[in-house]
């Protein structure tokens, strides 16, 4: 622990960085789950009944797989586009 009370030591820094990273990852996961539920409920459950039918369950599973696939494609495309824009300058 540093004697200089105005500085944080590397241990504390690591902890803070890990904590920030964790919070951001959690935030991202929550956003994704929210989007998945919204999209796939809308797409797959037209008339809510007393339980999810097996076809509704299958649809929801496929929908969330496809949404994640789409997310990955969008993420890659976006990153590449940014790189291309940066190379212009």
């Amino acid at each position, binding site marked *: 622990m540093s004697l200089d009370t105005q500085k944080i030591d590397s241990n504390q820094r690591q902890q803070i960085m890990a904590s920030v990273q964790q919070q951001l990852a959690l935030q991202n996961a929550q956003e994704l789950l929210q*989007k998945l539920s919204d999209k796939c409920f809308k797409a797959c459950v037209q008339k809510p009944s007393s339980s999810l039918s097996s076809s509704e369950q299958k649809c929801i599973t496929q929908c969330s797989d496809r949404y994640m696939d789409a997310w990955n494609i969008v993420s890659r495309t976006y990153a590449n*586009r940014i790189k291309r824009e940066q190379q212009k300058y």
Partner: protein
Amino acid sequence: MSLSSLANDPELQKFVAAKELENQLTTQVHHLTNICFDKCVESSGSLSDLSAKQTTCLQNCVERFLDCTMLITNRTVQRIQQGR
């Protein structure tokens, strides 16, 4: 550990700034996926493995949306400069 010691730590500041930027980009990806999924996947009806057509549509959707945003930005700046 005080707040001022956190604010004065340059490595931490750099890290936080980088993470903020990363977070902005991730938010944008969520936004784009939301729009492009509707246009390219949901509307085409099929939900089993993304077809090549759907994949191309998603890629085009991202590029065109960004083109659209840039166009609107330029146009808006133009209007402001013209005093409208």
